């Protein structure tokens, strides 16, 4: 099961899926509020913490009766995997945390470096607002209204990173203001932490921090740079996932 992070939707996995689907059954989904999800299902209360998203992940597992899955969570979704596996370990064969960060904001009191200050996050919200004009309310029905017509996907790639600004703002806050450092120790399923060699969003020591806190987890540093190894280096990312799944089988 591949879970996309903040910013875009399941198209983020586009280059990875062909490399995995030969060996695995791949489950893709859009988080509620992103991509072509049903926007009317989004509510401020449910989605202003990671718990709402975590509930959704577990619901998908139950609804599709998947049995134990390997959950690959990118960026903020890595923490949804952590929370979900802590709550229902029996639903997961393993976790792959791709470019994860349990806390983006520095915590100098305990010497933790997440890479950002609270002001930086405000600046991101401004950036979202500045590109807000690119969103138009009329686009929502086009994006959301045709889930049964995948042929529209081509035309929609242009809009796949555009989200309702109100929803994007709430998701940005959840993503960058959540602190899940304490939850890492609750994970009992086999876990692979895969970080990029240079990542403007998650500094290298964050990967090591996650590995140290999750009992028995393994850390690999991909040659890929940036925050999206599934786009920058799909082969390398797929190989890391495949090796991990084979090792825990």
């Amino acid at each position, binding site marked *: 099961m591949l879970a996309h*992070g*903040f*910013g*875009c939707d399941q*198209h*983020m996995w*586009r280059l990875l899926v062909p490399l995995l689907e030969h060996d695995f059954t791949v489950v893709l989904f859009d988080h509620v509020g992103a991509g072509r999800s049903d926007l009317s299902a989004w509510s401020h209360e449910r989605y202003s913490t990671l718990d709402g998203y975590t509930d959704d992940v577990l619901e998908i597992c139950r609804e599709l009766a998947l049995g134990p899955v390997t959950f690959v969570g990118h*960026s903020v979704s890595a923490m949804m995997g952590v929370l979900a596996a802590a709550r229902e370990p029996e639903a997961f064969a393993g976790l792959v945390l791709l470019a994860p960060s349990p806390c983006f904001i520095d915590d100098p009191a305990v010497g933790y470096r997440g890479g*950002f*200050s609270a002001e*930086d*996050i*405000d*600046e*991101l*919200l*401004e*950036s*979202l*607002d*500045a*590109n*807000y*004009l*690119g969103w138009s309310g009329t686009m929502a029905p086009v994006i959301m209204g045709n889930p049964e017509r995948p042929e529209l996907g081509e035309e929609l*790639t*242009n809009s*796949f*990173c555009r989200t309702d600004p109100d929803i994007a703002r709430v998701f940005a806050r959840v993503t*960058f203001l959540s602190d899940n450092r304490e939850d890492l120790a609750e994970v009992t399923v086999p876990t692979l932490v895969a970080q990029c060699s*240079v990542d*403007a*969003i998650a500094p290298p020591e964050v990967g090591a921090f996650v590995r140290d806190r999750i009992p028995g987890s393994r850390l690999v540093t991909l040659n890929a*740079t*940036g*925050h*999206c190894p599934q*786009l*920058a280096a799909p082969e390398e990312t797929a190989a890391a996932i495949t090796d991990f799944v084979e090792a825990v089988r």
Partner: protein
Amino acid sequence: MGESGDSESGDHRPPGRRPEKPSGRDPGADHAAFSALLEDSAEDLYEHAPCGYLSTLLDGTIAKINTTLLDWLGYDHGDLVGRRTFSDLLTVGGRLYHETHFGPLLRMQGEVSGIALELKATDGSRLPVLVTSTVKTGGDGQPLLIRTTVFDARDRRAYETELLRARQEAELEREELKRLNATLQQTLLPPTLVNVPGLDVAAHYHVASTDMVGGDFYDLFPLSAGTWGLFLGDVCGKGAAAAAVTSLARYTLRAAAVYDPDPAAVLGNLNTVLNHEYNGHDPRFCTVVFGLLTPEGGRGGFRITLASGGHPPALLLRADGSADHLHTPGGQLIGVLPDAHIATATVHLAAGDTLLLHTDGLTEARPDRARDADRYGDDALLDFARALAPTTASAAVAAIRDLLDTFGTGVDDDTAVIAINVPRPTSEEQP
């Protein structure tokens, strides 16, 4: 002669447009002069173009950058090329946006245009820019590098900030309007229904749009000698003007009922008031059903006399499980004619019987909006009531609420429902 003409036209005409050819002029010389101008400018245009250019490797490392952009930011060539990434030039917020939105979009589409970002200059100032990037691919389609143009967007951004501020202000005002509408709506309805001894009552008001006040109303109130007045109506139209009529109708009905509780007389009074008030210009009318509830000591239960002016028929859900319309045929719209005909009907409400009044928002709803389906209609509602009977006031209103929920956005008008029921004696109550 020919040469001086050439240089003059070269100064004043845009390059690339051939000057008109006067007699005696040498077209070959013209062409050579322009070619020289263009060849000379190829590198110069790149370096000193009125926009920033930069090329980056796929990992973001800056491979080439023009003088314009270096000057804007205060860097030297050697500071950046091969040493820094494009993302390093952005503010932190912009970098997050770049990583989470811009980069993935660029990979997906091969180009991204008109993204608003801010660059950091060496002196600490910030330069608002609009950025467009394209991916240059090799012959085999593999991406090689990213070409980016950067436009100074200070003025434009100021304008956009103004637009954004205006939009945010408009959103705040819309919220305020919603609050005002909700408040106004509440003042047109009783805050809670009064407790009528020997009756179970329930009501529901469904708001179709939070942008407009609807025109539906109802009330239940005591009259003299142990009797009770009940009304439910629908003013044509929406918004503040309709709300004013609703308010007038509501107070007129209550005052008229005190003066003479006969239901036909009450509606007659309302008709006269509306007809006088709004006659001539801006006619306003409504449909209303007014009921007088009289407890029947000996028999038990209530005698109910209903008068209707153009309103959809009430539904009577009997204790024996049957249900039917309580017709009041021929009643005319209230407020249109100086002498509207008002129809009345009288019915006995015994233990276990329920009377349900509703406005046409319910029957005019389109249950399946996606397929532009037919309206719900009186017959479907009657079938629904038959399936429901016997029932209680609160159960009937809850069932209608659920029904409205299943219609979703297919309910395009406000809907009011009120139900009254004579409870069965406790010993007879269903488990």
